[in-house]
């Protein structure tokens, strides 16, 4: 299968799936290698950029997702009224920042830095799927360790946790 054909089939798959799809899933469906899949994905990304198409192809961790181009947001929003998109509260953002930078982190570590109880914000981030439990710390009480998810990357529009600005 040629890269250009593969890339347009991937476009169709991403369009139908809506949700994030992984490279191995696509490779299996197209019966091509993961390397070939990645080539096709990169080809598609370059094509979207050079043609300034209506959407972009973003990678969040292992997942790929089609999204509308940010520049067109005003038009899209006008079409989609009412837009019910919420940004995170200051408290949630701070809790998330500690977990993102120190992951895996316990609630105790977050509370230590923030100086307040964080039960509510940790629960709320879990509910939103932005963090997940990844095990328990080998310490007194074996507290739960939390890390960020692919959905976290998606929420902040980054492909990898290393894209966050480094701490001073």
């Amino acid at each position, binding site marked *: 299968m040629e890269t250009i054909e593969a890339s347009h089939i991937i476009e169709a798959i991403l369009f139908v799936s809506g949700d994030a799809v992984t490279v191995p899933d696509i490779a299996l469906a197209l019966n091509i290698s993961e390397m070939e899949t990645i080539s096709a994905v990169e080809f598609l990304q370059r094509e979207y950029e050079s043609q300034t198409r209506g959407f*972009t192809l973003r990678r969040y961790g292992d997942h790929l997702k089609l999204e509308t181009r940010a520049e067109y947001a005003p038009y899209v929003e006008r079409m989609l009224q009412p837009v019910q998109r919420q940004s995170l509260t200051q408290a949630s953002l701070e809790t998330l920042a500690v977990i993102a930078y120190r992951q895996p982190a316990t609630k105790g570590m977050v509370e230590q830095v923030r*100086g307040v109880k964080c039960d509510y914000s940790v629960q709320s981030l879990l509910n939103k799927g932005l963090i997940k439990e990844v095990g328990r710390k080998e310490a007194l009480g074996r507290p739960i360790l939390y890390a960020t998810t692919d959905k976290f990357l998606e929420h902040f*529009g980054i492909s990898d946790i290393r894209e966050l600005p480094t701490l001073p």
Partner: protein
Amino acid sequence: MAVFFRLKQFDGPLDLLLHLIGKAKIDIKDIFVSQITEQFIDAVRTAPDFDPEEASEFIAMAAMLVEIKSRALLPRPPKPEEDDPEQALIARLTAYKQLKESAETMAEFEKSALRVFGKLPEEIPLPPPTLEIDGLTLDALWQALLRVAERAPKGEEEAETMPQDIRRDCHTVEGCMKTIQKRLRAGATRFEELFEGKPNREEIVTLFIALLELLRLGKAYATQNDLLGAITLHQGRRKAVGDD
């Protein structure tokens, strides 16, 4: 003029402290040579939404600030203590300030990410799932058949293929009793000799039942000289020991 702070607008005591430091335009390091401690205690005491239940963290911080201040009035030890609460608080405040800056950057990332839209998955009718079964080869099928054939008892083909057919009994217990009696009348016979001529399973079973029946009725008896030795069958009732 007194300024009132609502505690709820701050994410904990560190947040309020940072706010006061920012307002006073001083460095975090200088909080203990400033009025920040007094401002903090004032702010907590006069907060219109002060609730001792919810403000416990603020109260704890206020208590710590008072303690640090009072220590400062005492003569200083010659060298700084290992865990100097003053330095510890400055370190916490510095770390918290960094955290707030990171959270601000993340909020900017979030803001631009909120400008892009995905879409819900399409709902399309799917064909029935394809099932691929591994290891289905003619050879594997053939091997399976051979395994079955090997395990199946020999000479049972007839019974296997027609398990539901009930055939007429070719061999009856009565018939076999007569056959055995006829042989015994000609003289004593070895047990094995009864089964000569390749009888099938049904015939073997019937012959054996017939023999047991004759033994029970006292029309035949069996003798065996050694343990596991040959069994010999005789006509009539066994004579009791000493009958001779």
